[in-house]
């Protein structure tokens, strides 16, 4: 069973964001990692790249297919999770502990367009 962690905001394309002050940690949900199966590669942006809400910023690859990562927010990438370069399977082990990028948010009002855990769980059940 997929987990739906409270306190995060979720997108319909199954990314989550954990907001801490001016920053947000973006990853894929536990539901998404279940659906993908074994993650074998994470294609991540570079530090200082700009990301835009609703636009692709990388990809997560399983054996069979590549799935685009869609940014839930706009801003500047200030850190990427380099551990995923060597151990992409960390996303399967704990998707919420292993964020993919840390973003300096440019517009916090975008967070209101995202779902809370309850709404996201209902969305996944549809």
């Amino acid at each position, binding site marked *: 069973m997929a987990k739906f962690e409270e306190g995060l905001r979720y997108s319909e394309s199954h990314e989550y964001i954990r907001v801490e002050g001016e920053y947000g940690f973006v990853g894929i949900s536990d539901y998404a990692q279940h659906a993908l*199966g*074994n993650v*074998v*590669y994470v*294609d991540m942006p570079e530090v200082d790249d700009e990301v835009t809400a609703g636009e*692709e910023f990388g*990809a997560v*690859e*399983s*054996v*069979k*297919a*590549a799935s685009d990562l869609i940014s839930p927010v706009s801003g500047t990438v200030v850190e990427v999770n380099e551990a995923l*370069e060597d151990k*992409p399977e960390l996303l399967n082990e704990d998707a919420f502990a292993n964020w993919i990028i840390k973003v300096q948010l440019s517009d916090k009002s975008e967070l209101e367009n995202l779902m809370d855990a309850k709404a996201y769980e209902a969305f996944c059940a549809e």
Partner: protein
Amino acid sequence: MEKQTCLYDRHVALGALMSPFGGFIMPIQYSNITDEHNAVRQHCGVFDVSHMGEVRITGPDAERYVQHIFTNDVAGAPVGQIYYGMMLYPNGGTVDDLLVYKMGENDFFLVINAANIDKDVAWMKEHTAGFDIKLDHQSDYYGQLAVQGPEAEAVVEEVLGIPCSELKFYTAKVAAVPSALAAVPDGFPSGQIIISRTGYTGEDGFEIYGSHEFTQKAWDKLIESGRCKPCGLGCRDTLRFEVGLPLYGDELSADISPVMAGLSMFCKLDKEEFIGKEALVEQKANGVPQKLVGIELADKAIPRHGYPVLNTDGEVVGEVTTGYHCLSVDKSVCMALVKTEFAKLDTPLAVQIRKKVFPGTVVKKKFYDKHYKK
């Protein structure tokens, strides 16, 4: 609407991820592709390959007819011998790749790709003029299991009770249905099965053709035995890819001849004639504009079907046909169709993966060694 194989209900009951392939709704994976892949490399896996098509050619001109439509040379073959080869268009493009089983004098059993069944049967029928043959399309009668892996021989003999150790690589025999698997006669072809030492994984293994009822009972026995992991088409593709076996639609097509795909050894140009021979002779003499190569990337990013292949100047010189992060050797590799001038081993090439360009090198198309028992 996709067709179901005779094992559809069993796949669903096992919780398989089902997806359309070649006109059928097929199991892609039961647990996960990596585990199923490794089971076949290390132990034993069973695949439902009932979607494959079967055509029986008999009659006084059967051998001459097969020689006419097929690139390999079956003349004077011993009964039980199997040949891999292609059917070609006159311009050398590929109609399909297939196996031809010699079941008797002027009696051949042709196994074709699911996605090409209608096209192939129409093509065969179009070319029967002048041949005294009977062409019997039998795809709807046969189920097919592929039992693959280093333990396949023991599993087939001990679990199914079908003797197979004497079968040499690429040979087949007709066998009686073992009494434990016998059922009320269920029509065609009652009481008999065809078993061959063949497969599409690069491992030792067997393919077993029988009635739907036989196929269902044999599948149940194999799964219940616990000695054989159910494996989906996902790992079938990673397994065949690693050992450099082509898939029609990726490495072969109406636009890709066997010469371009590096499969000339299965096209016997010293044969008197076959459809497409003149085109292949011309291609061998004058060269082909594109060739199929292997490319190994330095990075772990995964090249996928259709991604552009670039030269060191950044110009597009080809396209990926199949790519994976190769499970058996932990490298990102692909097969790609590239302009012939870039097809030499060690040529630096790159693959564009989404927005980034990943450098690589031309390598042999075989990324993992086959382990056939010959």
